[in-house]
């Protein structure tokens, strides 16, 4: 058997490799931290949307518009969006690393993942921050109650 192993002289200290940011380590930490936050955020989201008051029957355009007129829910949903999407993408990246042996295919999938995540993040952020709860000329029956003052 051939070995291309070269032995260091005895007692040579291990050369500390400087590589800038350790992505694998931060990725691992991110998955744990975002995971914990997401459990709280997701159950909070489900509880408010499905359990409080009349529950699911309440959900219509006016309900969503009402929520998105409140800065608290905008920040809440933004956090949910960014944490969950990046969490999911990092998970997919790990799966790609595990199952795709071909370096080119791997690269293509990574780029596709990155691109789709970026697009979704931009779109989602746009919707959340530029949402107009009282579109001009809308049927007052369908929009949130506070729109009356504006329309």
């Amino acid at each position, binding site marked *: *058997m051939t*070995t291309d*192993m070269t032995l260091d002289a005895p007692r040579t*200290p*291990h050369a*500390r*490799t400087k590589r800038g940011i*350790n*992505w*694998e*380590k931060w*990725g*691992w*930490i991110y998955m744990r931290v975002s995971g914990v936050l997401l459990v709280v955020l997701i159950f909070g989201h489900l509880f408010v949307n499905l359990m409080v008051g009349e529950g699911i029957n309440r959900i219509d355009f006016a309900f969503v518009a009402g929520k998105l007129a409140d800065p608290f829910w905008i920040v809440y949903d933004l956090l949910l969006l960014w944490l969950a999407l990046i969490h999911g993408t990092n998970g997919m990246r*790990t799966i790609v*690393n*595990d*199952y795709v*042996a071909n370096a080119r295919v791997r690269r293509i999938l990574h780029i596709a993942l990155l691109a789709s995540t970026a697009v979704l993040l931009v779109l989602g952020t746009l919707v959340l921050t530029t949402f107009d709860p009282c579109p001009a000329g809308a049927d007052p029956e369908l929009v949130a109650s506070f729109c009356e003052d504006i329309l």
Partner: protein
Amino acid sequence: MATAPAAEVGAVQEFTVTVIVRRFDPEVDAEPYWQDFDVPMYSTDRVLDALHKIKWEQDGTLSFRRSCAHGICGSDAMRINGRNRLACKTLIKDLDITKPIYIEAIKGLPLEKDLIVDMEPFFASYRQVQPFLQASSKPEKERLQSIEERARFDDTTKCILCAACTSSCPVFWTDGQYFGPAAIVNAHRFIFDSRDEAAQVRLDILNDKEGVWRCRTTFNCSEACPRGIEVTKAISEVKAAILRGKP
């Protein structure tokens, strides 16, 4: 088998077990194939005895590694009914012998012949974590250690380097680049040893792209370890030590 005469009270009953072995001879076969053998066995026998009977009485070409036959040398880890076990520690009575017993080589390492794999990649990553004591002090007598300090890494001293853990790890199967549980277990053994001074070096080595962060906590390693080492726990302790920056 004929019923044993009454005189043989307490005699161990003999029965026939079907053993299906995944064979491969690189000089003849393009692909591995399964071959079955009917082996007369006693319930006190181990899987290793079945392999011996096949090799000694039926087919001398069957190749496998074993040395101590008592669970301490670590040479006969293999996949028995889909689980990584030592053949010398797996009793026939613990398996369901109404069905055949499937035996194949451990996965993730290059197959050489029948049940023998090339262990070199496994030992290469073992060597990389510097599994030896590094201490600069030169005491007159032995280096003293309290009972608690010794207990800190007691679990990981038990490793026999059988590779059952590493070759049961789905992350290791993917590309074989991951250090693997066994290397981390043996790094753990020195990282948490109060007499050793190179913990930082080993933590640095394992804080690598192919280091502890690839562990997905699937617990296959803990389930496979014939020494009962809590492998996944050891890996988590190394992760925590890296985050803390010290053991």
